[in-house]
């Protein structure tokens, strides 16, 4: 088979689309984040996210978030079929604005935590977790 100029162009275009596709998976995650922040800019100071580098079992991945003075923290798994994980709203009697829980991850992906800080600004932290066995069944 001989490649005409047109064929080659089409091939190149196809390849470009394939490489760009994985990013569109994050669109749902971006929506969840935008609903929380209202589209505001995010800093990166004032929030800590502790997650393992490698999780053998995606069904229970321990994560910890901490953001001193924050009123709310949103946790998002960017590669999950439903990206939202949890939202912590801290009341006046919270001893510290931190919490830890166990989450499910469908595969290797970035886990993102966003805090609404006391002054109304937002801070973001993210951590890549490598998952050996995904946790969404199926």
């Amino acid at each position: 088979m001989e490649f005409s100029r047109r064929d080659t162009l089409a091939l190149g275009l196809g390849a470009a689309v394939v490489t760009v596709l994985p990013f569109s998976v994050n669109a749902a995650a971006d929506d969840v984040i935008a609903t929380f922040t209202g589209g505001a800019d995010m800093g990166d100071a004032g929030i800590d996210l502790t997650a393992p580098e490698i999780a053998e079992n995606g069904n229970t991945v321990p994560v910890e978030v901490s953001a001193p003075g924050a009123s709310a923290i949103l946790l998002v798994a960017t590669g999950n079929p439903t990206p939202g994980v949890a939202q912590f709203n801290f009341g006046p009697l919270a001893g510290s604005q931190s919490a830890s829980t166990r989450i499910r991850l469908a595969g290797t992906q970035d886990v993102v935590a966003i805090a609404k800080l006391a002054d109304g600004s937002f801070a973001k932290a993210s951590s890549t977790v490598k998952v050996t066995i995904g946790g969404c069944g199926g």
Partner: protein
Amino acid sequence: MASGVKPRVKVPKKAAAGDVITIKSLISHKMESGQRKDKEGNLIPRSIINRFTVEFNGQSVLDMTMEPAISTNPYVQFEATVPEAGDFVFTWYDDDGSVYDTTKSVAIG
């Protein structure tokens, strides 16, 4: 109501006034994500706990929204301030409308 739901909470029995204490909570619940399929290939409908709240003498400590990405038997660890003696009330809200709650008292001393 999902079967076999049992809340378990670990709270110190005593604390000094104004102390910050660590609370561990766990509720046995299958947290069906709505993504899995049964043997015939039908989707198993979602059935999770979607909200968890903690109050101390009526004041909020934590109000957490849960999504399907929370693991089976949701476990949450957090910290709370104890200004006076009183009761912690833990409440879990199920997708099917059930509400599970448990109360733990803390004494000052």
